[in-house]
């Protein structure tokens, strides 16, 4: 057993867990945040993507102990109170989800993609950047649209703030 402490969605948490506990299990089972999902065993589907110290990683391919001392954000920690994050809002507006299972990972990846590429990200780049996220429902078209719209929206907000 090992003690794993981290800042999870802005709150300090700590728990004594099996060394083999994956970060996704720590999030879901130890702390009951079930928005992060597990869709495969081979690190390919991306349903489990969370942010560790600001970077989008697959929480099924990281031991909880590796994230000891880190800041972790899950889909539950993305909205600002009742105000949706622009990427969340764009997924809804553009019908970027159907069954909703891949959605949390998609959204967490999308936030990271936008932070790296900015407002003018084109369709081809978004499609390529989604290499690590599988969706079986949407055919990706509306996910791509949502990310593009959110990128522009977030950039607009940034410009307005400056």
């Amino acid at each position: 057993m090992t003690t794993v402490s981290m800042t999870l969605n802005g709150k300090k948490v700590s728990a004594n867990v099996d060394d083999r506990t994956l970060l996704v299990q720590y999030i879901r089972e130890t702390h009951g945040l079930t928005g992060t999902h597990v869709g495969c065993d081979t690190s390919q589907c991306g349903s489990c993507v969370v942010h560790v110290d600001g970077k989008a990683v697959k929480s099924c391919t990281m031991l909880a102990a590796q994230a000891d001392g880190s800041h972790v954000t899950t889909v539950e920690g993305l909205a600002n109170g009742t105000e949706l994050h622009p990427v969340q809002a764009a997924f809804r507006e553009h019908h970027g989800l159907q069954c909703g299972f891949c959605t949390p990972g998609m959204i967490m990846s999308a936030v990271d993609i936008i932070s790296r590429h900015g407002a003018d990200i084109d369709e081809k780049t978004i499609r390529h950047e989604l290499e690590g996220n599988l969706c079986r429902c949407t055919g990706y078209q509306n996910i791509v649209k949502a990310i593009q719209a959110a990128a522009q929206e977030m950039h607009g907000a940034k410009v307005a703030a400056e």
Partner: protein
Amino acid sequence: MYDTTYHRAGSLQDAEAKFAAAEDAKFLAGGQTLLPTMKQRLAAPSDVIDLGKVPDLSGISEGDGSLVIGAVTTHYEVASSDVVKRLIPGLAALAAGIGDPAVRYRGTIGGSISNNDPAADYPAALVALGATINTNKRSLSAEDFFEGMFMTALEEDEIVTNVSFPVAEKSAYAKYPNPASRYAMAGVFVAKTSAGSRVAVTGAGSDGVFRVSEMESALDANWSPEAVAGISVPADDLLSDIHGSADYRANLVTVMAKRAVAAT
């Protein structure tokens, strides 16, 4: 995943000591290969020793005519490094195409080469560029380091500390990915180095990374896609599986070599 004991190493010496004390330990860098293997119950180390936070193992620096990349430097860091882009652009491009964005944030150069997956990208770059692999015990040339499929010259308790690349005049990488896993079915790294033209292939060989001397001589004479267009590698030595026959991989080696040269 079978039960295991996790240790975070604070220094290289600490990692060595922890390894020595454990029954059947494995070093953990980014974990992007080791953890999936453990999850599938295909590996069951008694202990994992995390090198991720060892201070001296991370970072990118420019030496005298060389580029040095610490072992736990992530693919993302290599891909986005201005130094790498300036000195060896082909290497930055290669790193930008490993796995997917989430994997690139965690996966490391040291972890990748120590595992020596026959379809991994880095081995092609290290061999083509004539890189030197430095460990806690010694220095090895890339060609001595990679010994075959999932086999390296590393001893059990040996830790890669960094990889040193001589700066090349030209470099580029082209790969054709396995459509499912997106690992290389054939990845070709071409480099114009002080030691001459070098061509190294990953993903296709049944014994891991290999050089194509015929292409190298042709490129020495004429650095152009046309120079390699007519040269093919024998299919006998290539992998053949549900994703591609040896014949197909042989074709891809030629096509990717052409495209890599064209990209320089």
